[in-house]
Each structure stands twice: as structure tokens, then as C-alpha cells.
């Protein structure tokens, strides 16, 4: 039987972070990944030689001193990647089809306030109050500081208010409210369901700066691989835990892999979907309370994606990297409702990459979508789906293209769709149980799975544990990692590696 200090299950951004963090702290780590390669949603896929992002497109918090910058620096990853900051003044644009108007939103708190006040002069006070509130929530959340992360999250008042409630208390202006809640597409939960606190914590990074990585998520995966070598972290792909064995006094003694290999370790950290965690732990040791809690988690939104290119000579006045959200109207709740049948939110992510010496203009188009949209084909697998499914995709591609061309008539002759993906494609390609983009839905009054599980040497981390997205997923690994190596060691690790 092989022995390790810790096994980490799942090699998305959270599992990669967890494995490296523990390895850097002198622990002998084995990282298990079900797929043939590591990286999860960070992965980039190539079609016709062109790289397309799958689950990681852009992020906030990568500026010096930002939370992501800090986490990557501490792990010795920052110097191995190359951030590409989107243009400050028009990183994010929102095109409202109902108004036929484009709103360009900069990043940086001062600039955002100014720009929004220019668009909505009578709402100046509401705009200031909104950003003040966001900043206050983040200041009141100890875990937003890497040195203060803790498994036990103390709630603040805003953890019990929805984004919608707060916005309704500030303004009646529907367009302004839609723009302020537009980043809901970055966490996949309705404004009437997400807490104002979590909305603020997620948006903080994106309000500070918006960037992507040169080479996309693959660049980060490569950086991790290099660091894994430095710290002798073992990785095993196409493997997963088939059985948690010898559970005694709520502790597992042995983990049996799908390969038949048996492993003994102190801790096992699961960075997989809570639904998969529930399947893995022997049922006889679970209380009904635990099962009911995990089963009641709902699904966040997913996307229907188009992977497209633009001709090199087209639309040169546009920035190389930028994000445009096309909203049919101002009702964000509706756009994030699985039952809603109308036109939904479309997010166009425009990037450039150099491929074999030539600059390529790439457009990733994401339209909000849900497993309900493809429920009839849920039992089918990639490459073997029926004609009705192919027709569904064709129809959806057509309607998305029409909407893009209405907003950007210049694209008509120059846009080529290379591939597309439905929620089912994401489910099967990225091993995400329901194909959602952000794990479970973060709702008011919800207690996520984080830290110790009912088998007490097993832990939960990942984007469903704390907050969705790359920052939240990485934070969850720091939180759980801290509880494993203990406070004292964590503090000295931070003192050594976090320069401020």
C-alpha cells in the first residue's frame, strides 16, 4: 500500500492550488484526476490550430496587491504567467437590445463611479452608495485578506440580503440596476437569489481590474506543472477514488482507486462537485441531515458556447481584448431562469492570440443556458447524440449569430463559427456533473460544504465551497489548506511568501 500525507481529488484550479499549497508546506501529495489530463475548466482546446478557452476566460484581482495576484505570488506561479490586462476604459461593454444602446464600463472604482454617473446623472448618489456598500462588505469580510482566511465564515448583515433587495433600495432605474447586476453572468445566480455580500465579494476583483492570461488557462496549468516538479508532487491522471475503506471512528483508513491501487494517507481533500462527494462517502456513516443539506443545493447557470474567429482585417478599431455583454432587456432574473424561453444574455469575449506567427482574432460567445434546455438528451454521450440534438444546436447557433450581427453589422462578412458546445458538451468534456459553469448556486442562508466532511479526514474545497470562479476556488483551497497545516505554519508560510 502506498503512503502519502495527503491525496487531492480533482485537478481543476482548486485541486491544483490545494496540491501545490500542501506540497510547498512539506507534505507528500498525490493529485488524482479522472480525465486523461489535469486542469479541468482551465483547459484550452484547439480546433483548426486555434486555441479556445473552455471555462476560464478572464478574471479580476490580478493587479499588484489583488487577491488573485497575491495567491499566485504566494504559490510561486505569478512569475510563470503573463497577464494581459483589458483596456481600462472599455474592458466591459453592455449592449442593451431593448434600448439599442451600448454602455461602456471601465474598471477601477473611481472610473466606474464617474462613467456611470455620466450615463445616469440623477443617480449619482445611488451609484456612490452602491460602490461604498460593495467596499464595506469586502472590508467586513476577514477572509478577503489572505492572512485571515478561516473555515468558519462569520456572517454579516449583507449575507442575508439579496442583490435585488439592495439595488431596489438604492434606485428605480432599471437600466442602472441591470448594469450593476450584469456581472451575475460571472457567477450564474439571479439577483433575487444571490446575497449582496457574495455578489460584492465576487465583483470586487472585477471592479479592480479585468485581465486574461496570455495562452489562456493552459498557461496556468503549465505553470502548476513546473511548480509540481519543484515540490515533487505526484499526479495521477485517469484515476479516481473508487472506494473509501476502513472507516473507523469517522476516519477513513484506506482509499481504493479505480486502478485497484490502495492508498493510505492522513487527509483526502475533495475538490469535486458536492454531488460527487455525496456519492463517494459511505452512506451508512452519513446523517440524513447531511444528505438533505447536500441534496438541496441547486445548479448555477451554464452556457451555450460558440467558438469563432474574425477575419484579421476586420474591425481594427476594436480593442484586442474586450468583453461585450448583449442583454435583450433589463430583467436579469429572467435571463437566469431555466424556464425562460426568450432571448438570453450573450457574452462576447474578444481576444487575440498569436498562432504560428500570425495574429488571430478569436471570439468566444457564451449564451446563458441550463441543463433543462438539453434535458431530453441527458442520457446521450459526446459524439453519439441524435439528429434532434444537432438541430437544436444549429438553431441556437443561428439565433446567436443573428443577434451578434444586429449589434455588430460589420461582423456579418467576417465571423466564422469554428465549433459550438451545449451544456451537455461542457458536462461531458469537463466532467462537471450538471454542466453548469459555476458549480452549485450560492443562495441566501445557504451553508456550503467546506472543510471537514462526515469522514473527518476527508475535506471539501472548490468553487462550490466558498465563492464561484477562479478566485473563490483558489481561496477555498487556502482556507482548507490552512486548517490542515494549522495556523502557526500557515502564518509563517504567508510571512515567507507574501510580500507586502
Amino acid at each position: 500500500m502506498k503512503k502519502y500525507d495527503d491525496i487531492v481529488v480533482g485537478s481543476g484550479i482548486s485541486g491544483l492550488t490545494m496540491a501545490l499549497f500542501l506540497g510547498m508546506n512539506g507534505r507528500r501529495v498525490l493529485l488524482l484526476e479522472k480525465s486523461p489530463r489535469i486542469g479541468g475548466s482551465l483547459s484550452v482546446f484547439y480546433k483548426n490550430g486555434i486555441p479556445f478557452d473552455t471555462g476560464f476566460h478572464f478574471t479580476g484581482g490580478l493587479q499588484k496587491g489583488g487577491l488573485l495576484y497575491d495567491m499566485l505570488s504566494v504559490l510561486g506561479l505569478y512569475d510563470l504567467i503573463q497577464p494581459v490586462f483589458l483596456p481600462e476604459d472599455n474592458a466591459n461593454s453592455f449592449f442593451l437590445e431593448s434600448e439599442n444602446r451600448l454602455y461602456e464600463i471601465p474598471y477601477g472604482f473611481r472610473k466606474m463611479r464617474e462613467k456611470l454617473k455620466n450615463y445616469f446623472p440623477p443617480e449619482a448618489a445611488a451609484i456612490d452608495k452602491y460602490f461604498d456598500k460593495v467596499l464595506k462588505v469586502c472590508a467586513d469580510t476577514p477572509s478577503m485578506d489572505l492572512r485571515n482566511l478561516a473555515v468558519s465564515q462569520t456572517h454579516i448583515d449583507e449575507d442575508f440580503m439579496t442583490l435585488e433587495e439592495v439595488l431596489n433600495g438604492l434606485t428605480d432605474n432599471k437600466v442602472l440596476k441591470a448594469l450593476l447586476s450584469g456581472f451575475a453572468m460571472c457567477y450564474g445566480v439571479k439577483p433575487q437569489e444571490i446575497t449582496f455580500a457574495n455578489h460584492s465579494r465576487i465583483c470586487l476583483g472585477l471592479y479592480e481590474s479585468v485581465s486574461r492570461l496570455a495562452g489562456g488557462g493552459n498557461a496556468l496549468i503549465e505553470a502548476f506543472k513546473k511548480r509540481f516538479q519543484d515540490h515533487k508532487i505526484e499526479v495521477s491522471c485517469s484515476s479516481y477514488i473508487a472506494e473509501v475503506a476502513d472507516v473507523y471512528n469517522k476516519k477513513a483508513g484506506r482509499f481504493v482507486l479505480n486502478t485497484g491501487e490502495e492508498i493510505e494517507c492522513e487527509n483526502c481533500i475533495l475538490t469535486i462537485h458536492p454531488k460527487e462527494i455525496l456519492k463517494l462517502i459511505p452512506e451508512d456513516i452519513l446523517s440524513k441531515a447531511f444528505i438533505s443539506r447536500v441534496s438541496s443545493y441547486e445548479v448555477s447557470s451554464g452556457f451555450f458556447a460558440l467558438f469563432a474567429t474574425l477575419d484579421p482585417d476586420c474591425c481594427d478599431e476594436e480593442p484586442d481584448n474586450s468583453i461585450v455583454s448583449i442583454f435583450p432587456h433589463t430583467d436579469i432574473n429572467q435571463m437566469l431562469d431555466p424556464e425562460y424561453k426568450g432571448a438570453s444574455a450573450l457574452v462576447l469575449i474578444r481576444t487575440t492570440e498569436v498562432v504560428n506567427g500570425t495574429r488571430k482574432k478569436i471570439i468566444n460567445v457564451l449564451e446563458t443556458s441550463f441543463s433543462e434546455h438539453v434535458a431530453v438528451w441527458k442520457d446521450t454521450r459526446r459524439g453519439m447524440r441524435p439528429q434532434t440534438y444537432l438541430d437544436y444546436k444549429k438553431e441556437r447557433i443561428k439565433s446567436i449569430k443573428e443577434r451578434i450581427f444586429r449589434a455588430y453589422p460589420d461582423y456579418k462578412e467576417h465571423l466564422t463559427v469554428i465549433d459550438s458546445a451545449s451544456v451537455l458538451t461542457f458536462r461531458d468534456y469537463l466532467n462537471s456533473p450538471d454542466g453548469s459553469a459555476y458549480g452549485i448556486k450560492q443562495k441566501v442562508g445557504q451553508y456550503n460544504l467546506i472543510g471537514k466532511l462526515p469522514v473527518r479526514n476527508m475535506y471539501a474545497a472548490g468553487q462550490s465551497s466558498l465563492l464561484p470562479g477562479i478566485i473563490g476556488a483558489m481561496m477555498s483551497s487556502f482556507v482548507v489548506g490552512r486548517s490542515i497545516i494549522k495556523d502557526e505554519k500557515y502564518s509563517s508560510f504567508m510571512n515567507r511568501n507574501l510580500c507586502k
Partner: protein
Amino acid sequence: MTEKEIIEKTNKVFEEFFEIESERLKPEAHIFSDLGLDSLDIVDLVVALQKSFGINIRNEDKIRDIRTLQDVYQFIFLIKNAEGIKDS
């Protein structure tokens, strides 16, 4: 909500969600040493109580002070009472 209703509903949570026999559910019963929960079960208990009583429970010091079943009744009573005051 009366105290009796709170006691009944709370006991039901322990019976249904933690499979503890009703005769063991005495107010003075210690939820850890007598009823066999551990500190990590508290989150599951809180979630079950939230669902059962239709309330939101904050993660705060008062939860960490809970020791006996009577403490749980008292804790719910305070939340329900505060709700009543807010509503009226």
C-alpha cells in the same frame, strides 16, 4: 410560535435528520456527549433547523455556545421571537 411547538419541531429534526430515538430527547440532554453529535454536525443541524422553521440562522457565537437540547430550544425561541417583534 409557542414554546411547546418549538420543542416538538426541534425534536422532530433530531429524530428525522439524526435518527435519534424520541425517548433520548430530554431538554437536559447534551447534544454532543448524550446525543452523539460532534461540533461539525452543528452546520447540518443549523441547516435542518433553518429548513424546518423557515428561518435564516446566522453563523455566530451563540451557535457555538449551544450544549444541551434546551439551548437549542432557547436559540430558536429567540430567533422566532425576534421575527415576531420585527413583523408587528
